[in-house]
């Protein structure tokens, strides 16, 4: 993350990093990380969510992420993979509309796995994004776009 924020530059993106001690092996995934946050529906141990902050947790090899925050009533709110994908799809659809592109110009696809929440699939379809059923292969194949 340090490298990434440097590459992006301070005007694009800033992040405060916690639990960065990779020199102490026992700390890996210990009461922290994407899996912990998702499973226990709470922030990493020892971390207090600042008001209005958007938080994220990665897992030990950084190929999983969850986002979370506290709402106005200090209730913990988790954004898992389905929600992240839905937000990203909505954002891309907004860009497409702002660019004045129609379905003839571009088609947006979203890949969900078979484990995706059914309501999230319904929501995505209603926002004009075409959904393909599961399979990572579809995403990586040239046939998709």
């Amino acid at each position: 993350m340090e490298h990434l924020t440097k590459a992006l530059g301070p005007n694009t993106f800033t992040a405060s990093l916690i639990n960065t001690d990779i020199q102490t092996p026992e700390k890996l995934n210990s009461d922290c990380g994407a899996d912990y946050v998702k499973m226990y529906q709470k922030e990493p141990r020892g971390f207090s969510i600042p008001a209005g902050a958007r938080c994220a947790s990665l897992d030990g090899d950084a190929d999983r992420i969850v986002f979370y925050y506290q709402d106005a009533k200090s209730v913990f709110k988790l954004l898992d993979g389905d929600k992240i994908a839905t937000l990203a799809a909505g954002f891309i659809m907004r860009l497409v509309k702002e660019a004045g592109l129609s379905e003839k110009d571009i088609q947006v696809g979203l890949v969900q796995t078979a484990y995706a929440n059914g309501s999230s699939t319904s929501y995505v379809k209603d926002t004009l994004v075409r959904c393909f059923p599961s399979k990572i292969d579809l995403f990586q194949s040239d046939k998709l776009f």
Partner: protein
Amino acid sequence: MITASHNPYQDNGVKLVEPMGDMLAQDWEKWAMELANAPTPHDLVEVLEAIVKEYSIDMTAQAKVLVARDTRPSGLSLVEALKSGVAALQGDLLDEGIKTTPQCHYLVRCLNTRSEYGVPTEEGYFDKLAKAYKRIIV
């Protein structure tokens, strides 16, 4: 990629990456299981020979293996074991040290597309991500 993902630090494992940076092909899962569960070195060799036969692998071709690991302490000794295995079959091992799993996938694809996908370094990875993000956001 030598990692056990979200597991406790004492655990370890391996994630295999396809040449184009994809996740392991489904038909390879059964082979991964057989290799991991081979009770003796002799059984391990038998499984390897079965794989060579099944896919008609040309054993004279130069094989290249890229390995990266996460921060688990057992990662180092597992990389050493891999070095011996790859050397035993006269392959080349590219040790990328500590990387994230997405970085490992990226590096494999870069190498197999002769850097068309990106510069095969950690810096190349961040440059590519940062460029894409700035185009879409800014």
